[in-house]
């Protein structure tokens, strides 16, 4: 008789092609256009800062896992993605030690200490950004830059939202295409929306969080912005600051957003309200980062109350 033994395992015996690696890579691809525009606008320092960020995150993850005798997971690209997201949230001309500290904080303190990928309670890149904002407030809010002398030449460094808060008028067209001051990756609403649509089309993220987030903020601004139904003011809020980057790429981070479909809708609404509160009634002109990391903390609670109902539940039993 045939004495060959075959592999056995529980069903199913086939697997989908998507892997953690392919998903992370897709998100990185979606972020690249906005990153490239940031590099083009902001110049060499932006490029170098981005590279330092990504490298620090990968090295920090490798070092931690190496010294903790854990499986090395840098090939899943999640550390690289964290690095890229952090870089996109940094002003272009920060000194080079800033991305190093930020990268180490993001990977070690926010991610690995809690158990690594999937276990962190807060978005690592945003956690690090907020840590840097508090620790190096001056450096982190200085948006002046030299650039390559590319597509435009404003170098004063006031972000559109800060200008808006100060009651100045802003150039909506420049905001939409990304030719304004800001962090490396947040300026171009257009490219970020395109990246987000790519992720939705590839079914990496669902529409729920970004749509609910942006929609709620729009309603909030109309109701409480103090400008009535002013389309220009509304559009400035939509395209300004980190909203598009936050809504499509940071709030939708799998690990720190609700896993349940209903929970994602609630999460988006909470984000919209918080961002509106911070932007309009808060001291700073920005609100996206704090809104997201605060809402991250609510995720377990949201999930608890939005657990899906099992199929056929409520029918006859026994």
């Amino acid at each position: 008789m045939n004495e060959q033994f075959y592999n056995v395992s529980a069903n199913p015996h086939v697997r989908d092609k998507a892997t953690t690696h392919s998903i992370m890579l897709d998100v990185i691809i979606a972020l690249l256009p906005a990153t490239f525009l940031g590099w083009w606008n902001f110049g060499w320092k932006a490029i170098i800062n981005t590279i330092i960020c990504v490298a620090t995150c990968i090295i920090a993850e490798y070092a931690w896992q190496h010294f903790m005798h854990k499986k090395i997971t840098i090939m899943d690209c999640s550390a690289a993605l964290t690095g890229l997201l952090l870089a996109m949230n940094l002003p272009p001309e920060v000194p080079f030690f800033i991305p190093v500290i930020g990268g180490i904080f993001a990977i070690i303190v926010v991610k690995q200490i809690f158990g690594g990928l999937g276990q962190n309670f807060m978005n690592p890149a945003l956690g690090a950004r907020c840590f840097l904002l508090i620790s190096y407030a001056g450096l982190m809010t200085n948006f002046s830059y030299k650039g390559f002398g590319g597509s435009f030449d404003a170098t004063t460094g006031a972000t559109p939202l800060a200008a808006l808060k100060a009651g100045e008028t802003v150039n909506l067209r420049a905001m939409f295409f990304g030719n304004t001051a800001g962090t490396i990756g947040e300026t171009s609403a257009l490219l970020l929306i395109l990246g987000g649509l790519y992720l939705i089309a590839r079914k990496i993220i669902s529409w729920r969080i970004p749509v609910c987030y942006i929609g709620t903020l729009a309603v909030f601004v109309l109701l409480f912005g103090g400008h009535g139904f002013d389309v220009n003011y509304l559009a400035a809020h939509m395209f300004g600051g980190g909203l598009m980057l936050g809504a499509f790429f940071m709030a939708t981070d799998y690990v720190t957003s609700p896993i349940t479909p209903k929970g994602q809708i609630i999460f988006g609404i909470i984000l919209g309200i918080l961002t509106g509160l911070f932007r309009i009634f808060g001291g700073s002109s920005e609100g996206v980062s704090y809104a997201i990391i605060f809402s991250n903390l609510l995720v377990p609670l949201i999930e608890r109350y939005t657990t899906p109902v099992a199929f056929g539940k409520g029918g006859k039993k026994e």
Partner: protein
Amino acid sequence: MGLLTFRGGLHPYDGKELSKDRPITEYLPKGEMVFPLSQHIGAPAVACVKKGDRVLVGQKIAEAGGFVSANIHSSVSGKVKKIEQRMTVSGNKVNCIIVENDGLYEQAEFTPVENPDRDAIINAVKEAGIVGLGGAGFPTHVKLTPKEPEKIDRIIINAAECEPYITADYRCMMEIPDQLISGLNLILALFPEAKGVIGIEDNKPEAIAKLTELCKTEDRIEVAALKTKYPQGAERSLIFAVTGRAINASMIPADAGCIVDNVATAIAIHEAVTLGKPLYERVVTVTGDAVVNPGNYKVKAGTNAAELAEAAGGFKVQPEKVISGGPMMGMALSTLDVPCGKTFSSLLCFTKDEVRACEPSNCIRCGRCIEVCPAGLMPTKLSEIADRGDFELFDQLDGCECVECGCCSYICPAKRRLTQSMKTGRREALALRRRKKA
């Protein structure tokens, strides 16, 4: 009419083109035949022949061992060699009747049912040892005698064949659709209030067209096109797609006024009643990238699986994994030295074992398992609870509603073995329930 469907599910690579155009060919086995006494859900059958007896094709060799049990018939003529424990598809050793095939295929006398009234039909089904041929193997005569027969208003023929690779039901629909309709009409004769529905996934347009044409003259039968999506053929998904009624794990289809039978089962009912032929052979798809001639074979129960693989031309390359059933819910076999029983719908041979190639990693909470779960569960959370051993909480969170369809493991990008944990959790939680009751 829009396509009927259900919530959740996914679209695995279907691989049906390997065997879908291969007509059913009969395979006559050569060696000894092994008839496990347990080829169905319920009590094992009791042997009614002894060593040295000569048996004929279609002769009853084991008697149902209780109400929920089924008769077993020989598929060859020859001598009973012995009754001993042998390994079966499930991986367990089961008592088996072993018959030395004399290759003559001398047939026992089959008596068709003269006057197919209610009792005669059910009796014929019971005598023929018919069980659900979709894979579960639930005795069909039990299914056909629900507590409140007057409440049954739909007889659904499960022709979804949503498992990738398998084409056995498809070939039956293309080659012997009249027998399928006859079988369905016999079931309908038991339930005068009911309407018959043949549910077919729309990736089989030829079968839909053929049956729709044939059913034009049948006013009690309707062909329903179902959206192609795995697990469309899972009983609860199918009932929901066809009737919009949702049942949970503690209910049976009859609670929703439905009786669901597989294509092959309906054909077996037709044969049992109109020919008096017991269930001792079925159509099996032998396929996979390791097989030389993938195809559909009419296989006698008790045939050795290794012999069946040889019948399909043998292997191009030694497979890493062989599966009884489909790739989503089938059972992996450690050896091919097992008999094909009544519920053996497919022999699937893969050169590469995808499961072994994928190392599980941390859950990234992408939520895909929740999106695809047809039972509306949170597999990532429940599997964690099961792995932790908290089966009480597992049950509280409706873990027992899992249908073990495999969607969660399939879709998981971190390649976590969710279905495996769910199955363990479910088994343990159900055992806990029983212990509590006792």
